[in-house]
């Protein structure tokens, strides 16, 4: 049975945000196509539409020439289409076998689950990865007892268990080690020879060249073209991924002088997704953290704030520290603005003033000095150009940009010397972004050291004089001066090897 799938002009909106404006893709049996694009380009959305997990707002799917509409994942699975998802779709409290065969368990007399057959079939599937996995991975092991790489393998086996005609691997290699990746690739070659179609989403450039026949590139929710891997180069793909017209912002923060005091010195830091990261940050410097989502940037900031355990050496103002709790970091004048402001940054139903004062209550005495607190909060609100009805308004009535100002303001009230920012302009309107950049400039001029992770490449390139690009938790490249360009940043975040060649 051969399969031919065409994705035509797919549109998907989440509320007011357009995730896909014009998604196109063609694939047929025996092909391996790599789907690539920068952060938020719509790769995952497109794959979810193909597998029926989300419904598109417009466009068409053509299966063997006929329009199809998958209203749920079951419908797509019925036609032999399934995916290995990036955020895992396993049920933690069930065993490996139960997870793999969930919703298509082998049955006795159409009624009782045939556990024997289920175990046997699971063993056969596990054998595909034999030699690259631990003894732990057995049909009867609970998924919650498995480490991330083996969960990922269970996820792959689960997709395989329906014997798919089209298999989507959405960053399935991200948590696998190299022997597991090699095994997966040789399996992909076998499946390809057996006539399966495979869509392979990855953030590793070398994998694209190892496994794919073609690459389809997405940019800002739009497919910009498909190239034959045999006749292309990493540089050509990188150029397709970036927007040629993008211009960096004109607010450039001046290069910090070589003799400014070192605020933060990090040696061989590891923890969470971070491995072996070293760098220094001087007073008055804005150091950028770049790369694709989830490459360890957030964990690096959390580790420095004492919120997750870490190894390695961290020196703050020359003093060796080992934080065990955010309070330790706060005592050393460090502040952290988290990425998920709704969950970690704000008390949404409480008032602006309460949010502002939360990290600094003690400053106003045991018997709360309300007047002083009000005065400071108002000054900070004016300083940040916060638009608000009154100090007592709950924060959830503010717009995204204004809410973010409150998060920032509550930490600035403590007058931090080192500011850790986790994607602070996410979901913030353009006008507020501009104010925000000016604020960063003022802060650095006042001598604040800032470590700034952003998923917006323009921002990093426009503001920073030095950008650390992370991939798989390691610093893949450090961009400065001439090399602060889009193509260098994208190439480094994809782990491209020919960084220094000019296209």
């Amino acid at each position, binding site marked *: 049975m051969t399969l031919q799938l065409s994705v035509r002009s797919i549109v998907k909106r989440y509320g007011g945000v357009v995730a896909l404006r014009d998604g196109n893709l063609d694939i047929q049996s025996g092909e391996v196509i790599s789907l690539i694009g920068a952060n938020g380009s719509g790769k995952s959305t497109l794959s979810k539409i193909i597998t029926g997990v989300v419904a598109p707002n417009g466009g068409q799917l053509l299966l063997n020439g006929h329009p199809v509409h998958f209203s749920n994942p079951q419908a797509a699975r019925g036609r032999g289409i399934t995916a290995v998802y990036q955020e895992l*779709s*396993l*049920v*933690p409290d069930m065993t490996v076998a139960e997870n793999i065969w969930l919703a298509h368990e082998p*049955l006795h007399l159409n009624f009782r*689950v045939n*556990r024997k057959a289920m175990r046997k079939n699971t063993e056969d599937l596990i054998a595909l990865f034999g030699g690259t996995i631990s003894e732990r991975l057995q049909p009867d092991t609970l998924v919650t007892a498995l480490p991330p790489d083996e969960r990922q393998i269970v996820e792959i086996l689960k997709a395989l268990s329906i014997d798919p005609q089209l298999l989507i691997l959405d960053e399935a290699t991200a948590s696998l080690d190299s022997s597991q990746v090699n095994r997966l690739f040789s399996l992909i070659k076998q499946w390809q020879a057996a006539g399966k179609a495979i869509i392979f989403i990855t953030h590793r450039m070398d994998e694209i060249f190892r496994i794919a026949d073609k690459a389809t590139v997405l940019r800002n929710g739009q497919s910009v073209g498909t190239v034959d891997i045999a006749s292309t180069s990493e540089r050509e793909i990188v150029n397709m991924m970036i927007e040629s017209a993008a211009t960096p912002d004109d607010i450039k923060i001046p290069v910090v002088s070589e003799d400014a005091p070192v605020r933060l010195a990090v040696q061989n830091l590891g923890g969470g997704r971070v491995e072996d990261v070293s760098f220094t940050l001087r007073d008055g410097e804005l150091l950028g953290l770049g790369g694709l989502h989830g490459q360890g940037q957030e964990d690096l900031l959390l580790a420095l704030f004492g919120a997750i355990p870490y190894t390695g050496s961290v020196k703050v103002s020359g003093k060796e520290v080992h934080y065990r709790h955010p309070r330790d970091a706060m005592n050393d004048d460090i502040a952290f603005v988290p990425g998920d402001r709704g969950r970690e940054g704000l008390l949404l139903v409480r008032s602006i003033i309460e949010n502002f004062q939360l990290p600094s209550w003690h400053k106003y005495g045991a018997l709360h000095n309300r007047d002083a607190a009000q005065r400071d909060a108002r000054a900070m609100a004016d300083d940040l150009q916060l638009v608000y009805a009154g100090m007592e308004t709950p924060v959830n009535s503010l717009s995204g940009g204004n809410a973010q100002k409150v998060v920032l303001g509550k930490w600035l009230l403590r007058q931090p010397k080192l500011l850790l920012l986790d994607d602070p302009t996410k979901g913030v309107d353009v006008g507020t972004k501009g104010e925000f950049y000016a604020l960063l400039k003022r802060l650095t001029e006042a001598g604040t050291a800032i470590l700034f992770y952003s998923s917006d490449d323009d921002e990093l390139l426009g503001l920073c004089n030095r950008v650390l690009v992370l991939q798989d938790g390691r610093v893949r490249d450090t961009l400065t001066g001439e090399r602060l360009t889009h193509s260098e940043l994208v190439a480094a975040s994809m782990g491209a090897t020919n960084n220094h060649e000019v296209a």
Partner: protein
Amino acid sequence: MKSLNLQRVFARNTYLISFILLVIVLGINYIVQNNVFELRVLNNNLRTLLPLILLAVGQSIVVIGGGLDLSVGTLVSMLSALLVTWVTPDSTPDQILLAVVLVCAAGMLAGLVNGLVVAYLRLQPMITTYATSFIFSGIALLLLPRPGGSIPRDLSTFYRSPLLDIPLAFYAIALLLLFWSVLRTTRYAQYLYATGSSGAAAYATGVPVRVVRVTTYVWSGLFAALASLTLMLSTGGASQANIGDDMTLDSIVAVVLGGTRLSGGQGGIAGAIIGVMILRVIRNVIFFAAVPTWSQTLVNALIIIAALAGPGLIRLIRRSIGR
């Protein structure tokens, strides 16, 4: 390997710890009340326990599926009122059978309403079932404004007498466990646990999550009907409009005492049955240990809290030792 298996045994049979707890409290009970294992006493205890056991079984199915049913108690009140308005001491067997079928159908219908609102309108289970609980208690009051009702004497005598020297409730419990062990082998059970453990993952795998959610409340409604039938058998049909209202919280506490986690996806009905027994035995012990009447409620509450906190305390201690 070995330790992994043991871990799995405990993770799967969450009632094991509860079972140990039950043995301990039964031992204490034996010390303060020597005749607890005599047939007559055992039969009396189990007979009055069966309604709550049935209710807790229904509750645990809802909880495993990731929900919570706060309406089961008033549903028992409503269904009991319904039963005694249909059945009189002079009813023929046919009439009684019809009434039983109708009560079961009414219970399932009530559960269906709960389930549809929770699964399709996506209201919080707690809010939904709290709200419907007032509907049920309102109907109960309309049906039975004054306490009353009675059923044929033969029925209550039958329910009271042991069969082959074994309390009737034992047969009922055996049937429940048989029902569960069969259900546990079906695909439906896989869906139930998957839905309760991680609804999103189950959905992405093609499990009809909403349908499964609805069915859990229908089960709970059916078991509330069975609970009200046994309750009427044990009271001889004497009912009142709020007869079951207090059973809701007991059913939830029993589920938790039985080792089923309130967040769903784990546990089983054996735990709920054990949980009900633990609750009852604790009350027994307090009664026979000559705790002053006015302190009994307080002591009872303290013991239950200690039992509920047990697993969490063990985990805390284990962590502080550093595993």
